[in-house]
């Protein structure tokens, strides 16, 4: 019992460390560097300690210090409680989704089965969607409680955009559920040990539509109409400063990691290396004993998983700095008139193929 509790705590701490402690701050730096690279600038190299800049990595510390020391400003006529609550409502769901996301398979350590997921829910995939859909309130309430018309417009766009793309997103994953016959993310991951069972081969259209819909859900360029700094100042977070703004910022980056993790598990073989089964890898490291070989396997799998996540994050960054912002009506058209019918057709075709193969 105590051992289980400690294992669970270690997993939770690991997830916290890697999202809040590693990905969120480092991604702010990566985004600056990526944009500088793509726009032929040098970028993010001013912050230095004793003359050392280390590729601008000290900007992370500078940013954090700036956010902590800025004045926390609540505009006149704003709803104080809701204005304070909404960054929390936006950030917390992004963190909770990691409770069901497996970051590795199952390993035998010291005669104990360790499953690298905090909670292996039967309805895992739906849990992710349920929690992610709650984040909408953070953004919607933020704009409404600011007592600012730009913010209100931003949050109305958020509400309509997130609702629209949630529908298409939910329908695109039905294809995946039909193929794998499970909602457990650990099971979906385990099936993909076979390279030809990867979601990207079984559901190529689902892959593209899911990627599009999830970027739209995260409100990043080209779907950043809710922020649209050239039209709405900064959209729903116009009136936020200091760490409250930082929380919105952090929520966006952590959602990028969530999207990467979900895409990896559903479409890119989760923690598996193509053509290398866990059994083969275990036999390679057999000389280390059962526990030793399992530890090496676990490290390899976790490394491969986060490598794939980083790939998806990089893909999202490339998309962000390549495309211009879509117009609001174009976003709605894409969601309702293109992705929605296509995802319904995808479900039909998947069903017919499954029926034909039986």
């Amino acid at each position, binding site marked *: 019992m105590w051992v289980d509790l400690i294992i669970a705590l270690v997993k939770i701490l690991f997830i916290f460390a890697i999202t809040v402690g590693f990905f969120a701050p480092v991604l702010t730096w990566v985004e600056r560097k990526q944009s500088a690279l793509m726009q032929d600038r040098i970028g993010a190299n001013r912050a230095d300690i004793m003359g050392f800049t280390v590729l601008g990595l000290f900007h992370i510390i500078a940013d954090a210090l700036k956010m902590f020391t800025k004045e926390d400003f609540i505009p006149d006529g704003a709803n104080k409680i809701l204005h304070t609550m909404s960054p929390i409502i936006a950030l917390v769901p992004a963190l909770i989704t990691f409770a069901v996301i497996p970051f590795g398979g199952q390993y035998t350590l010291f005669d104990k089965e360790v499953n690298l997921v905090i909670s292996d829910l039967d309805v895992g995939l739906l849990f992710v969607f349920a929690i992610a859909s709650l984040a909408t309130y953070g953004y919607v309430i933020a704009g409404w409680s600011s007592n600012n018309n730009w913010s209100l417009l931003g949050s*109305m766009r958020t509400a309509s955009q997130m609702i629209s793309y949630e529908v298409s997103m939910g329908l695109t994953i039905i294809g995946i559920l039909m193929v794998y016959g499970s909602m457990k993310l650990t099971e979906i991951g385990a099936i993909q040990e076979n390279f030809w069972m990867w979601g990207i081969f079984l559901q190529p259209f689902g892959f593209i539509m899911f990627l599009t819909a999830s970027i739209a859900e995260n409100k990043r360029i080209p779907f950043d109409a809710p922020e649209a700094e050239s039209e709405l100042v900064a959209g729903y977070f116009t009136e936020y400063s200091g760490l409250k703004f930082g929380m919105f910022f952090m929520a966006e980056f952590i959602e990028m990691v969530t999207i990467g993790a979900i895409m990896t598990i559903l479409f890119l073989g989760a923690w598996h290396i193509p053509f290398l089964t866990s059994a083969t890898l275990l036999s390679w490291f057999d000389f280390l004993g059962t526990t030793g070989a399992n530890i090496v396997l676990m490290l390899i799998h976790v490394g491969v998983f986060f490598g794939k996540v980083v790939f998806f994050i990089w893909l999202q960054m490339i998309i962000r700095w390549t495309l211009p912002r879509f117009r609001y009506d174009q976003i709605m058209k894409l969601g309702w008139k293109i992705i929605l019918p296509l995802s319904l057709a995808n479900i039909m075709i998947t069903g017919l193929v499954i029926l034909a193969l039986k």
Partner: protein
Amino acid sequence: MELLIFYPLAGFCVVLALGVVFNNSPVGSAISLIGMMLGLAGIFVLLQAHFIAILQVIIYAGAIMVLFMFVIMLLNLKKGDDTGWISRDKNLFLSILTGALAIGILYKIGDILFSTKMDSPATLPDTFGTVANIGETLFTEFVLPFEVASILLLAAMVGAVVLAKNKLD
């Protein structure tokens, strides 16, 4: 152990449900309703119905209430002008009807409450509340109500489109 979770959750739900009724601002009411639905999802989890709990969050808290909020913001409803209870004559018939319905429902709930045995916790099979189990029941035992409900939803959807289209044209 279960009661230790149940009573705070149920209390939370009741307080927020009262908050929906007594809140002056529409947004406050909507937020209370969202909180109440999350509490209800927690009670479903307590009853081993994980799938229903998740659906409660996705559909009610995650989708329907966002639309509510959207409409409230679109109309930019601020605090209600008249506080306190109002009764208008033209609403009399509707008031009596809804009142009668409410009393009927309360009677039915009381009837169920007093006729069930509270002391025997039922033993549940392992597959209770899983997605596969619910799907199977839905498409075998309850297939007729399921299809009827889907037709009703389809009719409502078509009706909404027709109404909106008439206004647009």
